[in-house]
């Protein structure tokens, strides 16, 4: 690997500044005494205190986490299973049909997905005769639906990289199909599964457009709450909240990164010792 030129480094730095500038603005003003985003009076933690007194925001935060975790876990399991099945499909037309349909929520604008699910729920609600169908269940269904393609499409390519003979070899050597799946196939597609899970979790946490259409008044997620707040002028306690979210995700990512690196080093040294033998 050659060393990066100075211009490459500057270019990378500029883009990172562009990506982070608005975030740092929010973090900076979350510590501002005054309720202003043009003048920084002096350092204060008062908006963090305000935030924890705002029960609606705290409740929305809890709702968002519950929704993100449940939808991404379900989508990862369902999606990984689907990817295994799709990979094993011998019939070309069936495979193409399933993959094309899977692509629809990704290709489709979020707003269309949101609108289409809302209309489905409203129509079913009308037929069954329930008023106010929109709530946690509809949000969960919608989130699982838009997460699924991301899981499937990040798992599927892993099969191409995997040697298909391995699974067969494991079975020839006496593994049951289930054993060969959990011991051979799953470990080799695991990076894809993890990527899919992380993507789902992120998308779910951050989703506003689809949630906006399929949520009801009782179950508000954080993005929906933020939306209703940014219609007026936002008070800095929202900046405080975004700072907390940002910092906790940063910490989480650093931890994941460290543990992954440790795992990789282990594998590297293992391989190395094997080669030495």
């Amino acid at each position, binding site marked *: *690997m050659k060393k*990066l030129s100075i211009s490459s480094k500057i*270019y*990378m730095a500029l*883009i*990172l500044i562009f*990506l982070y*500038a*608005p*975030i740092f*603005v*929010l973090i900076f003003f979350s510590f501002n005494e005054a309720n202003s*985003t*043009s003048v920084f009076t002096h350092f204060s933690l008062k908006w963090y205190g305000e935030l924890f007194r705002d029960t609606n925001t705290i409740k929305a935060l809890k709702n968002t986490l519950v929704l993100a975790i449940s939808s991404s876990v379900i989508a990862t399991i369902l999606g990984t*299973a*689907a990817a*295994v*099945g*799709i*990979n*094993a*499909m*011998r019939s070309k037309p069936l495979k193409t049909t*399933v993959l094309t*349909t*899977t692509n*629809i929520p990704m*290709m*489709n*604008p*979020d*707003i*269309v997905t949101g*609108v*289409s699910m*809302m*209309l*489905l729920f*409203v*129509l079913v609600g009308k037929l069954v005769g329930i008023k106010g169908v929109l709530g946690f269940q509809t949000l969960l269904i919608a989130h*699982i*639906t838009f997460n*699924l393609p991301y899981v499937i499409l990040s798992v599927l390519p892993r099969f191409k990289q995997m040697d298909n003979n391995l699974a*067969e070899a494991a*079975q020839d050597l006496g593994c049951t*199909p289930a054993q060969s799946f959990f011991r051979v196939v799953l470990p080799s597609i695991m990076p894809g599964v993890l990527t899919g899970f992380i993507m789902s979790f*992120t998308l779910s946490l*951050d989703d*506003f*457009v689809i949630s906006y*259409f399929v949520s009801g008044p009782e179950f508000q997620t954080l993005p929906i709450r*933020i939306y209703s707040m*940014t219609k007026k002028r*936002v008070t800095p306690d929202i900046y405080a909240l*975004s700072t907390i*979210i*940002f910092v906790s*995700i940063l910490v989480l*990512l650093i931890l994941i990164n460290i543990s992954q*690196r440790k795992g990789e080093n282990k594998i590297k040294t293992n391989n190395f010792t094997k080669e030495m033998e």
Partner: protein
Amino acid sequence: MKKKASLSSKLISSPYIVWMIIFIVFPLLVVAYYSFTDMSGNFTLNNFNNLSRYAPIFTRSIWFGLVATLISLVISYPLAYIISQIPISKQKTIVLLVMLPMWMNFLLRTYSWMLLLEDTGIINNFLVKMGFSRLKLINTEAAVILGMVYNYLPYMILPLYSVMSKMDKSVIEAARDLGGNTTTVISKVVFPLSLPGVISGITMVFVPSVSTFYISQKLGGGKFPLIGDVIEMKFLVSYNYNVGATLSLVLMVLILICLFFMNKFADSEQGGIII
């Protein structure tokens, strides 16, 4: 033995297939149903006959989306290439840094740009302090496009990077050894090999840009309503589900057509390479 295994692997995807039919295919049929009916549920084509009044908004949405996508591609391509050239351990860190802003709420990120671009916002205050005059930044077309580029840039960088990092480095080296200069190597080797990443990057930026409805409200000040704004209004302000469904259907079809042509283009490019 093999047949048996593939049968159980086939069955494993059936819960998903059922889910897909109910929650992906069926909702689209419901959208079609609403767009061909009136408020009381009778068949009508009026929703489509009145579409021409939304034509300027559709045109603007597609235009803004195209510009934002092109800018994102131009910015991201060199970056993805640079990232793919650095040591693997550092690559991961940079990719995480690129992804991290996506965890920050999209609405807040956009709102923050409003704070930056306002007439008495951070950038303008800075300009005044430096002795320059204020610039009109917010409520312009440029601000809306900036919001799109900013919000969807990671979606362009990541697929490009993922293709480039998997690229066989020896192919690039071979091209260099055979006398290709940097421009030739990039245009004849790197770019064609990265095309799948380019296509998915374009898709992932273009689609949300065309259909966005928050960015234009906040950064365009309502002066440049996009098709997403109109759809949102139909559904959640004026409760006209039928017209809203029609606009959604048209938006969907327009985007599918765009994507279809793009994939065609990509296929023919790849065909050219084989020849």
